[in-house]
């Protein structure tokens, strides 16, 4: 491969360090379990904390309009949002603790947590 000639010995070390870094971040930040609660925020403040045990739809108001959050089979997704790019809607279903969907334009977010919350907005 022609590309390999451009990688010097020290570069391999950098690649290794980078790889270890990514691996550690994945293990540390994604190593949670299934979630049991959803924390819904609007404008940065907690709007409602909902248990995942009951299927429901929640309307969350924001500056651009209403974002609708769906809870179904212990999974959560943002069903609709007035924002232009629809990133949060396209993200789909959230299931693991720690997963989060953010609708930046409408300032709405939903975050899943389990029995032990690793990061807390107050204590972090």
């Amino acid at each position, binding site marked *: 491969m022609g*590309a390999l000639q*451009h*990688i*010097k*010995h*020290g*570069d391999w*070390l*950098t*690649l290794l360090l*980078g*790889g270890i*870094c*990514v691996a550690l*971040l*994945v293990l540390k*930040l*994604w190593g949670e379990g299934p979630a049991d609660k959803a924390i819904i*925020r609007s404008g*940065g403040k907690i709007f409602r904390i909902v248990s995942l045990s009951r299927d429901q739809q929640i309307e969350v108001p924001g500056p651009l309009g209403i974002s609708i959050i769906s809870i179904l089979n212990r999974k959560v997704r943002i069903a609709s949002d007035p924002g232009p*790019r629809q*990133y949060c809607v396209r993200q789909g279903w959230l299931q693991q603790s*720690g*997963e*989060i969907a*953010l609708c*930046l334009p409408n300032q709405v*977010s939903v*975050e899943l947590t389990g029995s032990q919350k690793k*990061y*807390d*907005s107050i204590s*972090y």
Partner: protein
Amino acid sequence: MAAIALGLTVLENAIPSPLPGVKPGLANIVTLIVLARYGWRAAAWVSLLRVVAGSLLFGNFLAPGFFLSLSGAFCSLLVLAFAQHLPARWFGPVSHSIYAAFAHITGQMLVVYLWLIPHAGIAYLIPVFAAAALVFGTANGLIASRFIGASESA
């Protein structure tokens, strides 16, 4: 060189990205080449010029996106100021690019956390950005290396 960097930025904006904030950072190839050929000051000029001109072009000057680009640029330039002193026999543009890429996402995450979304939940996105930094940092470093090598082989 700044014009080429700007051109790459425009090109890159045409490519839809699967996730917000994950970009190949093609214009950084120019920064890396300038760093290798003309030194840090020139690279800093090209980089900052590109960020400002790009934001004027896309109409988001002084918008959050602009500050994200700026913080990314500042942090990566800072790291490059140190990285360029790594012995050239062992470390090339690939290393410079990877270190700069990680510094870049760190700067951006700080701006996001301290100003835009002061919400510990963004920690969930960090592994994605880190992986992207590693992959695109390596790719850009290799591409830059190709151009640098081509001109130095004389």
